[in-house]
Structure formats: C-alpha cells, structure tokens
C-alpha cells in the first residue's frame, strides 16, 4: 500500500491513556520532556509480575452516565474513555451526522473474570464437590451483566452507545496482530473509498490476574523491576511487562478532513501487516520485505523508529539486529521502545504506537532515550517520517510509516 497525493490518509484524532497519564500533552511531557509519570510501575500487586497500571481517570468526563459505567468492566471503560478523547481531539465529538457514518474497527481481547467467584468455586471443587457443584455455583454467583462486559465486541457496542459512532463496526481479535490489521484495513478501506472516516483502536486492562495467568502459561512475562525492553531481552529469555493502555485514532481521507476544515497530526503513509512462524530470522525477513515495500515512500533523512519491541529475548534481539543494520546503513537515526514506558497492551499496542509516532511528527521532536544508548541513540530536531514496527510477543509483524503534513 503506498500513497498518492490524491488519496492521502490523515490522522486527525488521537486518544491515549496509560500509566504515563491522560492525553497527548501528558504523554509528550513524560516521554519527550522528562516529566514525572502519573502512575509508577506496580511491582507488588501482581507479583511476581510487574504491571504498568492505568493513571487515575475521572470516568465521568468521557462516560457521563453512571449507568453506562456500571454496565462495563474496566477494559471497556478504558476503551470508551480513550475513544472519547480521540473524538474530542478530532473535533468530531457530538457531530452526530458524521458519527452516523463513521466506521469503527476495534482490536480487543476479552473481559475480566470475577476472580472471587472463580476462587470460591475452585476451592469447592478441590474439596471434592460433586460435578454438579460447578453448575450450581455458576448459576447463583455469576452476574448476568458480567458476560456482556466480557464479550470482545462489546467495547465497540459501548462506544456506539456512549459516543454515537454508528457506521459499521468490526472487532478484531488476536493480540498485537488485531491492532495491526485494524489500522491497516481501515487505511485500505479509506483508500479504496470503502469509508471516509474511521475510529480505530483498543484498550487493555493489565491489572488482572486472569490474563496474567494465561500469559504465564507461555512463560512470556518478565519478573523483576522497571527495566527497559533491551535490558530485559539481554537477560535470559527476557520477558513482557504488560500495561494498561487505551488508544484510539481517528483516521480519515484528506478530502473528508479538509471538507470540515480539520488539520491532521500526521499523514498515515502506509500500514503493512505480516506473519511468520517465528523460526529464527523469519520475523526479520518479513520486516525486510515490508521496508522494501515502503522504500519508494522514504525520504533522504534517516528515520526515527518507534519500535514495538516487547522485551522477550528472541524477537527483541532479532528486531534489534534489524534496526542496528539500518542504523549502520544510515537509514535509521534512532529507535525508541514505548513498551519500556507503558508496557505491552496486546491488541492496543499498535494503535498506541501509531498514535505516538503521529504525536512526535506533529510536535516536531522525538522521545527521550530509555535504556541502552547503543540502540536508543540521541535524536535532535524534527522527524519528517517516523517508522513504527510491531512484532507481537507470539505472532504477527506489522509496520507503519507516519509522516509530517506541511
């Protein structure tokens, strides 16, 4: 997918919440200017795993009705909140006519379980309860509304109810790949005239033991302190630190934005999804092909890179070697890894990175190095083009190019 001037895609709204804070200013101030983060990493509540918790939010600001808040679990509240920020930022909040034609692609996993109920049932089962005990307890103890708060597509449903986004609505699943495909397909649809304006993104609540249990089964998680991804990857098998993040983007055709007098943060020049089976070298080969596809779009300045390196040793070291090769060739100037700041947010990871890439372009600066200076090299000045990469902790390799609009 490549850009012709006539069918440019603009990023006109970004809604971002994480442990760093709420909104674009908060993220810029922490990641580019060295301000304090809103919420420190939590190394005790979910020990042995550290987690980047969500910054405190006033939910009423984006989800005015308490009844709506009560109908959601945390991940849906985070997503609905971030979607509201993106709509505010794009100037489309409350524009019911345009919202009724706005298409939505949400990248989502599933909702939280009721851990207390699960614990009581497991204790009962362990004490030799008969096999109908499970039925009886589930019927009596599960809240009817919990199911709706768990369903993957109910984040989209809640965004429709709260913010009135009522074009088409799809929910993609599948960890980081879901977020990559969501942004890619939205961009492809705009370019092909299958929609003019999209709300794309997701939300992940990391502060939940049910998901940590699933990830622990795969030995994916880092145990220890607040360590940048490069250092984690250099220690044994490394590991992922998950973080609570909500990230939504408003992307639209240039014509649609100009018709309503809206200037963009940045242009979304290209988005590419990919997949390998992750034998050594395969993910890098995907990335090499993606970069070759982007080559006609690249300017002469070395790129700033927002990397989705997770801290898991194998993919992180392979991706690092890819970037170091590009640095040696003078094609990349510097690499930053947001997961060293906000953690991995699974489906939300890629939309958040595209948002951070667009933010850097629009603020005409780049983020502070964090950790290993050999890869997180200094970057002065204003990046014209930011490349963002996402290699999922399990599968999926994505790449996007975001560039300045004059």
């Amino acid at each position: 997918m490549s850009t012709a001037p006539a069918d440019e895609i603009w990023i006109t709204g970004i809604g971002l919440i994480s442990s760093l804070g709420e909104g674009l200013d908060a993220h810029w101030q922490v990641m580019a200017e060295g301000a304090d983060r809103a919420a420190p990493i939590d190394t005790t509540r979910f020990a042995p795993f550290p987690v980047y918790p969500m910054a405190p939010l006033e939910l009423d600001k984006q989800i005015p009705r308490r009844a709506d808040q009560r109908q959601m679990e945390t991940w849906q509240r985070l997503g609905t909140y971030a979607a509201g920020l993106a709509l505010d930022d794009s100037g489309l909040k409350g524009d019911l006519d345009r919202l009724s034609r706005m298409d939505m692609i949400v990248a989502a996993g599933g909702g939280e379980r009721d851990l207390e109920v699960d614990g009581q049932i497991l204790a009962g089962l362990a004490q030799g309860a008969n096999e109908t005990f499970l039925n009886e307890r589930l019927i009596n103890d599960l809240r009817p509304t919990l199911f709706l708060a768990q369903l993957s597509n109910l984040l989209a449903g809640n965004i429709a109810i709260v913010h009135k986004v009522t074009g088409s609505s799809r929910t993609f699943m599948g960890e980081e790949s879901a977020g990559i495909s969501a942004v890619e397909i939205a961009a492809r649809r705009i370019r092909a005239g299958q929609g003019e304006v999209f709300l794309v993104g997701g939300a992940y609540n990391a502060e939940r033991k049910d998901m940590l249990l699933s990830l622990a089964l795969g030995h994916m998680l880092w145990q220890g302190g607040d360590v940048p991804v490069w250092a984690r990857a250099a220690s044994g098998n490394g590991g992922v630190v998950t973080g609570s993040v909500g990230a939504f983007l408003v992307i639209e055709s240039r014509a649609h934005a100009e018709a309503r007098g809206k200037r963009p943060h940045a242009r979304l020049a290209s988005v590419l999804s990919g997949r390998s089976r992750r034998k050594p070298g395969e993910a890098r080969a995907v990335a090499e092909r993606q970069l070759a596809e982007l080559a006609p779009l690249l300017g002469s300045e070395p790129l700033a890179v927002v990397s989705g390196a997770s801290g898991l040793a194998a993919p992180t070291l392979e991706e690092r070697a890819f970037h170091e090769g590009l640095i040696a060739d003078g094609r990349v100037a510097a690499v930053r890894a947001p997961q060293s700041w906000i953690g991995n947010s699974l489906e939300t990871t890629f939309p958040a990175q595209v948002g951070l890439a667009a933010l850097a372009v629009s603020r005409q600066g780049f983020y502070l190095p964090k950790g290993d200076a050999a890869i997180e090299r200094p970057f002065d000045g204003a990046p014209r083009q930011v490349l963002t990469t996402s290699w999922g902790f399990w599968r999926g390799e994505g790449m996007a190019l975001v560039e300045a609009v004059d």
Partner: protein
Amino acid sequence: MGVTRDHLGRPVVAITGMGVVSSLGQGIDDNWAALTAGRSGIHRITRFPTEHLRTTIAGTVDFIFPEEVRSPVLSERLAHLAADEAVAQAGIGSPGDFPGMLFMAVPPVELEWPARRDLFAAASSAEGDAYDRMIVRALQENDVDAYEFALYGCVADRIADSFGTRGSPVSLSTACASGASAIQLGVEAIRRGDTDAALVIGTDGSIHIEGLIRFQLLSALSTNNEDPTAASRPFSKNRDGFVMAEGAGALVLEDYDAARARGAKILGIMRGIAEKQDDFHRTRSTPDGSPVIAAIRQTLDDAGAGLDEVNYINAHGTSTPENDKMEALSLAAVFGEHIAGIPISSNKSMIGHTLTAAGAIEAVFSVKTILEGLIPPTINHDVPDPSIPLDVVPNVARAAPVSLVLSNSFGFGGQNACLLIGAEPA
C-alpha cells in the same frame, strides 16, 4: 483484478467453494438433505452435567470427535472440516497453498474450567488467592497447547498454517453477526483488489457449561426441553428463546474474472453487503428498527438491487421473542407490500443458533437454496404469531426459483450485518 464490474464499477465477487458442519451432519450434502427434510439437529446435552440448568438442550456437534476437547480446539477442527470442503470444491491452489487471504470469525477464548481446575489442583503453593496459586503452577508447567489456545489469534493462525493462506489472518468477532462480518471483510478485500481470493470462515465449538449459563442468565435461551427438536420456533407465537448450537461454515470468494479464467464453477455472486451499528442498548435493538432497516437498505443499495428482485430471505430468525419481532417489523418497513410475496425462513429452526458461525453457515445454505431452487422450511411453526404476517415457509420445504437472497445477521452489542447473494451470471 479482472474487468467485470458491478453497478458501482467494482470487481465482482464470486463464490466458488462452500463447506459446512452443523449438528445435522458434516458436509453440504448431508446438511442439505436434513435441512430440506425439515429435520432438527437439536438434542439433549451430554457433554457436561445439566443439573440445575433451565436449558438442557443444544445443537452440539458431538458426532465427529468422540473425545472431550477444549472449545478452541473444537472450533478449529470444525473450521478445518468446513474449509477443506470449500477449498476442494473450489479446486483452487494446491493442498496447503491457498492463494488468498483468510478472514475468520472465531469465538472469544479463555482458559476453561477443566484447565483452571487442573492448575488449581496441582498447585503446591498455598499463598495468596486462587489465581496466585494457579500462576505459580503455570510457571512450573510447559504446556504449549494450553497457552496457545488461550490466545485470541491461535485458531485462525493454525488454520492459516494448515491452508497456507496469504498474509496476516484476521480473527474477528461481532457476536452473532460474526460469520457475516467475515464474509464482508473478504468481499471488501476482493473489491479493493487486495487479493483475488479469500477464504472466509465462521466457526463455533464453544458450548461449555459457563457459556451456556451466561446466555441462560440473560434469559436468552429456550427452556422447551421436553422435545429438543421442537424447541427452536422462529416466528411462532410460542417461541421462547434460541437454542445454542455449534458448527462451521466456509466459503471461497474470488474475483469473478479470476475464477472464470481458471475455469472454476461459479456457485453464486456476493452482490451486496452492509452493516449498521445500533447505539440503543447492549442487548436490545432501537425499538423502531431503524438500524436494522438501514442495514437492509444499504445492502440493497450496495447491490444496486430493487425491492422486487429479492425472492428469498434467509432470516436471522433466532426464535427469541425480541429478535423475530424486530426482524419482521424491519423487513415489512423495507419491503412494504412486496413482503407478502417473499418467502422467509430460518435455518435456526433446525440447526439452532450457531452464534459466531451462523452468518457463514446461513450464507452457504442461501447459495444452496439458489442452486437447488428449493427453500428450506421454518420448522416447528404450529402456532403462528399474528403480529408477524410473513410467509415463513412453514414446516415443509418449498420448490421455487430463487435468484437473489437477503441473509440477515444481528448480534449483541448492536451489530447488524446483511448480505445479498445472487445467482450466477453476475
């Protein structure tokens, strides 16, 4: 991308292969024979104990794989069978090398009770809560399958590996509209020229105890347990809820000219697609039906089809009081006086509600309806609902030429997706 274009100048999307598994059987032939004989696949649940449950019936697919497996494993197996049949019929690519993209509707996943129970039982730690103990145990194990099948992308990833589809597979969920959404994504990709072919699948093997109880707690399920085959009664006055069921439907979609060029038999044409998100409530539709009405109208517009061209409607028809009333109201609003002359039937009267798979399975049956000129009935229609004055093809299949089918799929969360499927030639 070929030269044949639709009324909006877009590439035409052909259907060249289909496969299906349901509680009625494996494969199109067995399913079609049962479906047109008015046979139900609904039966008593034997997979797990049903004590204390208000609903003890379902359309589980138990006849293929005797051993108990976790839900995503069954979902993958059902998808694999349906896709095998579809790809073989299309005669496209070679085994393990499908020359196109994969769009797949899959049920949400999580660790299930047997896995949790085993982890908890094996935990040596007594510190912290149940999850702390299970986590300690999980870190001592190395069960790759348990881990991977708890990932949301796993089922589609394995299907992509098996069939050798191109690019990154898309796993999606739009609740009970998921199967239709998968088809829509495939149609859009071919219309864009992103791919000449797409394998689109909807699969659901997720009937387990907690899943059933969740729907029971929402009062969504039929409790007509006495005669399981008579429980699903779409559009009847005495309908009282849907019957959960399993299955998979798969279709091979292709650029029309690419399919013709390789000599493929074209089974049908994906003429129009559309969807419209409702913003009224998490489980209920806007009372005036406006989002459903908009979805149907946009689908007709997308196809460039007039009201009088539609000669069969494959209803969502879940057998819940709410859905069937809303669907009937919306169809009457869109089609006006034409509605009296359009037969409408619900496959769910026989196969139950296959949830994530429903839109794909019912699209397969819609194409089959066109090819055979035989409309499957709505069975269990003994007490008509006077507020639903539709021709629901009661109880007995009907021979009739069918050239354009509207297939409806609606889901919790305000999802409304429609397909218009036409006969070849395009």
